[in-house]
């Protein structure tokens, strides 16, 4: 019996096998959306718990990875909705290090970083997810659509709307775009 079939029957061993095969992918996907390692870990664990609870509804003929990403994306979206207006986008230490290595004026770099973080934070969560994945991470719209449960075209429209809003906000704040 295939591992997906055993998982669908609630086999914990099969779930662990699938977890080990997909935890990296799910974590990386979530981290790209929320840009925080601790939150990405927490959401990854929560996503796998939801998968296990929903094992009976999983069709073993479906792609487990795509199903896992979809659940993880929904959780990441819920997280963005929850934190909206509570705080600005967290700046990942990697961003700070990378910004320091690219050269240029430190104050200008900080200004750009803050402006981008603020503009992203002000986007509606469902546009922010697409903006983060498509415009910053260069993830193809087909993959984004799959993870959000929408068509590639709909994901592209969201990307376009997010881009237009970001440009407007950044230009208002004087960004040289």
């Amino acid at each position, binding site marked *: 019996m295939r591992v997906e079939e055993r998982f669908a029957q609630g086999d914990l061993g099969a779930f662990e096998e699938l977890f080990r095969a997909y935890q990296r992918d799910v974590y990386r996907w979530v981290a790209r959306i929320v840009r925080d390692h601790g939150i990405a870990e927490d959401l990854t664990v929560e996503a796998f718990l939801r998968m296990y609870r929903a094992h009976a509804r999983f069709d073993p003929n479906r792609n487990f990875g795509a199903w896992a990403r979809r659940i993880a994306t929904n959780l990441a979206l819920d997280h963005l909705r929850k934190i909206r207006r509570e705080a600005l986008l967290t700046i990942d230490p990697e961003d700070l290090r990378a910004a320091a290595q690219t050269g240029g004026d430190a104050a200008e770099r900080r200004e750009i970083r803050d402006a981008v*973080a603020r503009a992203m934070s002000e986007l509606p969560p469902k546009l922010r997810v697409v903006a983060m994945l498509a415009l910053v991470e260069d993830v193809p719209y087909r993959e984004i659509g799959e993870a959000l449960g929408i068509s590639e075209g709909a994901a592209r429209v969201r990307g376009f709307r997010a881009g*237009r809003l970001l*440009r407007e906000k950044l230009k208002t704040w004087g960004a040289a775009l």
Partner: protein
Amino acid sequence: MNEQDDRDLREFLKRGLTPMEAEPRRDLWPQVLERMDERAARVPWLDWALLGTLALWLLLNPRAIPMLLYHL
């Protein structure tokens, strides 16, 4: 927004937020098991509510206790 605008925007955003090259810092399986146990041990709020209602009812109707014990 044309293709050039799109490219410019992507470039600008990446100057502020670099693409994430994230890897899990540890194995998350123990955390999954831990949360599974926590949730299995947790008594649902509805059970507590039913228990509370029963206790209150018995407090108000102490004569019902022997009858309840008989039916148990």
